[in-house]
């Protein structure tokens, strides 16, 4: 079964609003990453947060990690139409070997 589960599966907002996506996972991790995928394209790495970190920022992105709840959230502030894409969380841990386990993704639609 997938390590990461995202919520919601789909999210539709207006430009300028904030978008929040959540990810839950099952086992202990070393790091959690968020990726973005535009339709028909490969995935692009957005941000990585390590298990000993609680919050990280990158531009309009804010990621939080709560290891006690085994959950993470990705916040995109002041969204733009160009943010329309699918967003995936992925977990890495030494007991998974080298592989990242991806969730099912959240499909974000930002309407102009």
């Amino acid at each position, binding site marked *: 079964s997938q390590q990461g589960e995202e919520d919601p599966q789909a999210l539709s907002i207006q430009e300028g609003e904030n978008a929040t996506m959540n990810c839950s996972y099952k086992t202990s991790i070393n790091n959690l990453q968020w990726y973005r995928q535009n339709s028909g394209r*490969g995935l692009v790495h957005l941000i990585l947060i390590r298990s000993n970190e609680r919050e990280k920022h990158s531009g309009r992105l804010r990621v939080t990690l709560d290891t006690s709840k085994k959950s993470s959230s990705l916040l995109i502030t002041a969204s733009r139409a160009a943010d329309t894409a699918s967003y995936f969380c992925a977990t890495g841990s030494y007991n998974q070997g*080298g*592989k*990242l386990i991806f969730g099912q993704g959240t499909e974000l639609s930002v309407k102009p």
Partner: protein
Amino acid sequence: GAGVSQSPSNKVTEKGKDVELRCDPISGHTALYWYRQSLGQGLEFLIYFQGNSAPDKSGLPSDRFSAERTGGSVSTLTIQRTQQEDSAVYLCASNLEINTGELFFGEGSRLTVL
């Protein structure tokens, strides 16, 4: 090249035929990964390589699937006797070494089995 390159970008084949998908990782990246993505779904792990060896083949769906990597660079994913359920986008990714963080993905190879 600057990024991960995959070929072909699109492949249509008939049920029962064999297909080969190729991945050329970023130069110097020792770790290489194959994932499969069915329509509207997340990524399903298939196999990863550290150098030329594959420590984890657990995600390969059946013995019709195999992968190799030679010279620590190019990798080939082979699907024998393709079935309709093999239709998906096959994504390749690389990074400097395993457990070092972000993966760099190619654009994928879209396989359609008729």
